[in-house]
C-alpha cells in the first residue's frame, strides 16, 4: 500500500484575506494595443529619433488605423524607404522632423505616405 507523503488539499489556518480580490494578471497586449487588427511591430535600426526615446534596437508599436496629427510620431514611407519621424508643419507644409540634431527635417512629397502612427516604444535595457 502506498501512502502519500502530503495531503496537500487540506489547508490549515485562516483563509487568505486577499483571496476575494484576485483579478486577472496584467496583460501587456491589452494595455498597449487598442486595435489588434491594424497594429504592427517594427524594429528600429537608426538613431534619428534618439531624443524621443527611440533607440537603435527599439521595437515600435504602430497602429495603421489612426489618423496622424501634428506632432504624432509616425512611420512613413519616403522614396520607398521606411522611416520613423515626428510629423509637423513648417510654413503650412508637412515635414518629418528627426529628434536628433545630426539630421535635418524632410519635406513630405505627394508620393510619400504615412504608414502608421507609433503608439508605444519597447526598449529593453
Amino acid at each position, binding site marked *: 500500500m502506498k501512502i502519500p507523503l502530503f495531503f496537500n488539499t487540506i489547508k490549515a489556518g485562516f483563509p487568505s484575506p486577499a483571496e476575494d480580490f484576485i483579478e486577472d494578471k496584467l496583460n501587456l497586449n491589452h494595455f498597449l494595443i487598442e*486595435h*489588434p*487588427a*491594424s497594429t*504592427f*511591430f*517594427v*524594429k*528600429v*535600426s*537608426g538613431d*534619428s529619433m534618439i531624443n524621443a526615446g527611440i533607440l537603435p534596437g527599439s*521595437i*515600435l508599436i504602430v497602429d*495603421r*488605423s489612426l489618423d496622424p496629427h501634428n506632432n504624432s510620431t509616425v*512611420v512613413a*514611407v519616403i522614396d*520607398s*524607404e*521606411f*522611416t*520613423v519621424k515626428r510629423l509637423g508643419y513648417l510654413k503650412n507644409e508637412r515635414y518629418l522632423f528627426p529628434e536628433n540634431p545630426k539630421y535635418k527635417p524632410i519635406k513630405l512629397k505627394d508620393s510619400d*505616405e504615412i*504608414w502608421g502612427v507609433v503608439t508605444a516604444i519597447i526598449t529593453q535595457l
Partner: protein
Amino acid sequence: MIALVDCNNFFASCERAFNPKLKDKPVVILSSNDGCVISRSSEAKKYIPMGAPAYQYEEEFNKHGIAVLSANFTLYADMSNRINKITRQYVADIETYSIDESFFNLKGIPGDYVERCRALRKEVLKSTGIPVSIGIAPTKTLAKICNHYAKDNKDTQGVFLWSHLSNKDEFLKKLPVEHVWNVGYKISKRLNESGIYNTYQLKTADYTWIRKAFSVNTLRTVTELNEIPCFELENSNGPRRNIMSSQSFGKSVTTLNELEEAVSTYTTRAWDKLMEQKSACGYVSVGIRTSYHKDMGFYSNYYTQALEVSTWYLPDLIAAGLKALKNIYKPGFNYKKASVFLLGITARDQVNLNLLNTDYNYKKYNKLMSVVEKINNENGSEFIKYASVGIQKKWRAKSEKRSQAYTTKWSELLTIN
C-alpha cells in the same frame, strides 16, 4: 443582400504592404518549392500567365523587371485574419470562403449598402494596406460577378451593386459562361457544345433541361443568375470533416528515414488544425508519390491506417502515419511528395470508447496535448516536437525568395531607419 469582399491580388498585396519598393512594380508569387506562379500584381498580368512554371519564365521575369517572391503563407494567413476581424466589426453573418474572399449578409445593416461597403473597404486599406473589392447582389453568384466588375472598373471605387447595372442582360451577354462562379471547365465546355456561350444564355436556359443535363448545383447557379438565392452563407466556423497536410519536397527523397520525417512533420501540422477545432480523428491516411517524369519511374500509393480509438494524442497519430507509410514505401524511387490526411473526424465528446481500450488514458493524454499546444502557440510551431519530425529536414520545400514573417516572429520584424 449578399456581399463578396475579395482582396485584390492578395499575396502580392501582402508583400507590398511591407515592401514599398514593390509598389507599382510587377510582382509574382511562387508556390511552395518555387514551382509556379500563384499570384500576380496587376502590372505582371500582361507578361506572366497564372500557373506559369517559374523555370520556364526566368527570361520574362528579367526582361520586364518582375519581382519574384516565394509564397509566405504565414504572413498571408495573418493578414487574412486581420481583414476578417475588421469585416466582422461591420457585419455579423459572414462566411470565410477562402484566404482572400468572404461572403457576408447585408440584411439589417443600417444605411446605404454601397456607402457602408466603401467605408469597410477604406478601413481595410488603411489598417492593413490591402486593397479589396466588394460586389453586392441578391445572390452569391451575382455578388461574385459584381465583385469582378468592381475590380475591373476604377470608377466604382472598389464597390459595385448589382442593381446599379443599367442594362443587366446586355452585360451578361458579354460575360462568357466559364467566368461564372461554380461553372468549371467541364461544365462550360458542355454548355458550349449545347450552344450556350454567354451568361445571358445560361440565365435564360430551360431549368428542366439544366437539371437533367447537368446537376442540381448547376440549376442553383442558373436560379441565382435570376436573382433567386440558392447558395446560403455557410458557417465556416464549423469543424472541418477532414484535415490535410501535404507538400512536395525540395529535393528528391529516396530513403524511408527521410519520408518518415516528412510524414511525422505533416502529421504534426495536421494535428495543429485538429487541436484548433478541438476534434478527435479515427484514421490517418498517408500518400506518397514520385514526380510525374515517367523516365525516372513513376510510383504513387496511399494507405489508410485506423487508430485503435478515436484520439487527438499526437504520438498515436504519428505512429499510425508511420505504419501507413511502411505499408506503401518501396525503395528505388525518387519521391517528390507526401500527404497526410486525418479522417473520421468527430467532436471529442462523441468519441466512442472502444471496449477493448477502456484503459486508454484520455485524461492524461489530453492534458499533455493541451500543454504542447499551449507552448507552441506561445512560442511558434514545433517549439517542442516529437523527435521523428527530424531536425535538419533536408527534404523541406525550397522557398529561397521568401520575405520575412513580419507579423509573427520577433526575429523577423520589419526593420526601419
